[in-house]
Structure formats: structure tokens, C-alpha cells
């Protein structure tokens, strides 16, 4: 059963849904970041499974690119969290409204 692509696709989709639920439901900005990592991981798993299915190395190279983009995202996202936490003393994503218009409260 693990020899068919459907097992891997099922795992990737369940993991993607887990990450999506985390992004939608949670308010802690760290856990939103980790849920985004879960989403990226699910997509990487899908790429690697398809690379094995079509016996092509290109999909594995794309998976490496996704990992590199995740690393860049980690650097920017985490330094943003540090700056926002210094100003707001909170990890609640609903308190980060610096970029919103002033008259919308």
C-alpha cells in the first residue's frame, strides 16, 4: 500500500490541512509561523513523491528551492516578530495593526 503514490498524497494533503487549520484558527504569531512551515513541508513532500513517480530529478530541485525560500522567509518573519514583540509586548496577531489605517479600530 505504501508502494502507491496515493499513500504519499494522502499524507501530504492531511499535513497541508493541518497547517491550514493552524493558520486559520490560532492567534499566537509563532504558531502561525510554524503552521506555514507545515504547509511548505506538505508541498515539498508532494514534489518529492511526484519526482519518484515520474522518475525525474527536476521536482527534487524544485523541492530544494522551496526549502531555500522557507529559509529566507524564516529570517524575515522572525526578525519582524522580534520587532513587533518589542513594541506591543504581545504575541496576539490581532494586536499587530501598525499597517492598518488609523481610522479603522
Amino acid at each position, binding site marked *: 500500500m*505504501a508502494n502507491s*503514490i496515493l499513500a504519499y498524497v494522502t499524507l501530504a494533503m492531511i499535513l497541508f490541512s493541518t497547517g491550514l487549520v493552524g493558520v486559520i484558527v*490560532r492567534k499566537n504569531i509563532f504558531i502561525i509561523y510554524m503552521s506555514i512551515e507545515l504547509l511548505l513541508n506538505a508541498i515539498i513532500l508532494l514534489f518529492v513523491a511526484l*519526482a519518484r513517480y515520474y522518475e525525474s530529478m527536476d521536482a527534487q*530541485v524544485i523541492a530544494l528551492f522551496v526549502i531555500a525560500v522557507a529559509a529566507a522567509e524564516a529570517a524575515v518573519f522572525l*526578525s519582524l516578530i522580534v520587532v513587533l514583540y518589542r513594541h506591543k509586548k504581545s504575541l496576539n496577531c490581532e494586536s499587530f495593526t501598525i499597517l492598518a489605517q488609523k481610522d479603522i479600530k
Partner: protein
Amino acid sequence: MIDIIFFTLAIFTLAGGIGTISFSQPIYSAMSLIVSIIAMAGIFALLSAPFLFLVQIIIYAGAIITLLVFIIMFLNVKNEHLPKEENKNIHLTLSAFLLIPLVLVSLKAFNTLPLKSMEIMSGDFGSIKLFGMTLFQGWLVPFELISILLLCALIGAVVYARKEDKIG
């Protein structure tokens, strides 16, 4: 044998993922995420991708999540700074049920692919040599763009983390 390994790794991956989104302390979530990522590296090994197995462990678990754990410890978050989420588990369960149709539609789409054996390939598929040849022959321009992206992210992180008092 492959089945047993796959199911063990899949259970670890999913348990780590569910732990990541359901703990209220960020540090527990980060530990669950490490479990999930290392189990997924094992699944890459099952899919004949030994180089990505190494990359997943060294870069993801070794660099990205370590950076995340450093930041969580560095901020020294108190319990009263965490957002209050009273009905978190109910909301998580309900929205998980709402996402079942998405999963079913994707599985139906992939079900049309012809069945094919996915055993571990002999030969050098996924090896570092073949990987590097593919990367530098077919994907040279995206590779350079990724390096520019990483440089921009580095500069951006330095600019944000600088001591300032203009924002806010």
C-alpha cells in the same frame, strides 16, 4: 517492511503536525515541529531522495527550527503575553472537518494517475551528483535568483533587527 516504516513515519509526522497547532506554549509546538520534520526526512529517504533527506535534516531541523527556538527563548515570553484562546480545540476540530472536502477532491484528482510501483530505486537517482547536474544544467537561472532572494532576506533581517525607535 516498507509499509511498516512508512506507517510509523507517517504517524510521527501527523502527530508532530497536530501537536504543532494544538499546544499553547510556542516552545512545545517547536519541538513537535522538529519531530514532524525529521519523520518527513525519513519519508524522503523512502522516496529515493537521499540528498533531500540530508537537506531536510541539516537545513530545516538544524538551521530554521533552531533559529526559531533561539528566538522563542530570546523573547522570554511570559504566560500573560500569550493570546487567550479559550475554545481553541473546538475551533481546530470544526475547521478540520470543514477541510475534508478539499482533501477528498485532491485525492480524487490524483486517483486518475495510473498505478505504479514506488519502491526505492537502485542506481544513483536522487544522489548528489545527479542532483547537482540537474540543478546546474536546467535550473541555473532560478538558482541565481534564489541566491539574490536569500541576500535580500539577509539585508531585510538586519534592517529590521537594528535598534530603532521610528516604527509604531
